[in-house]
């Protein structure tokens, strides 16, 4: 199961890269970026998964005494939690810049942005 999920994550990263590299519409590129972002998160969570174990939350189903034998690795989860929140902040920033770009150029085509070319 973990391998299938990991493959799904890798495929999502590839699809996201493909979209970001071949599209010229800036909003399209941001959408592709979020897809790749999701793929990365899936791969990271998969690395922490162990067979036949359950979520790292202690309750009646998982008493504290035998937690070490029953739960999966919580560290990647904490990492991904951060990654998702930061990813959303980055997306908001990119969208704000896309809006400014459109305000200046009246287009969303990234190839029309020529000032930085040399």
């Amino acid at each position, binding site marked *: 199961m973990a391998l299938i999920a*990991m493959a799904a994550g890798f495929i999502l990263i590839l699809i996201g890269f493909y979209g970001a590299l071949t599209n010229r519409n800036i909003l399209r590129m941001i959408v592709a970026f979020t897809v790749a972002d999701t793929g990365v998160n899936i791969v990271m969570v998969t690395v922490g998964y162990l067979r036949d174990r359950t979520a790292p939350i202690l309750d009646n189903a998982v008493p504290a005494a035998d937690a070490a034998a029953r739960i999966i690795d919580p560290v990647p989860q904490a990492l991904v939690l951060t990654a998702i929140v930061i990813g959303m902040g980055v997306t908001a920033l990119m969208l704000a810049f896309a809006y400014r770009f459109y305000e200046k150029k009246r287009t969303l085509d990234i190839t029309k942005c020529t000032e930085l070319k040399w």
Partner: protein
Amino acid sequence: MIRKFAALLLLAGIAAIFMGLLFTYEPDPELNTTARYYAERTAADIGAANIVTAIVVTYRGLDTLGEVTVLFLSAAIVGLVLASGRRKKTAKERTVTPAGELLATGSTLLAPLIMLLGVYVFVNGHLTPGGGFQGGAIIASGMLLLLLTDPLKHFSHTLIATVESLSGILYVAIGLLGIFLAGGFLDNRILPIGTLGTLFSAGAIPLIYSLIGLKVGAEFSSILAHLSETEEL
């Protein structure tokens, strides 16, 4: 055409690397040392049932402080970028299709419930899945429901900024209290740990996570408000 070809070539290379990673991946049979430490010590040291919360708020509390700061910066920059244009016409003059009566009634009915759900998620962050970030996002979603009903609505930026900075200051203050009363910065043992599984347990974690939740909710709301107050181009 050449562009597409180059992209495909690059992707093929990355795919080869990924295949290598995928086929040589061997899941660990046991928890590694760090994870074992967290799994064994959390219940006794921190008193939080949700080990991820214990890691996010206490063991790696400083990282979370940095994360909240990054989020604050991104909210501030979004506000700056969007506000720097000259204002041709105010948002009031935009023409929008008004929402139907059903959506208006439904959103006044549901918005308080969504807020309460957000508060539930972050107050119970140490017992159930969820916590400050998720709760904050849900609170911002409640704001969003109001915005969807009436896009010309203006939220009080002063209120949002006040909530945001007040909870931020309190968060850092509780972290500093940890230095004086307990083992270090953001130590949760400034309050009694209590019994595992009740609401008032895990020391200061519910308090810290509530403050994070309010701060994150205010930041997300400010991003949404800034975006909704831009004019149509």
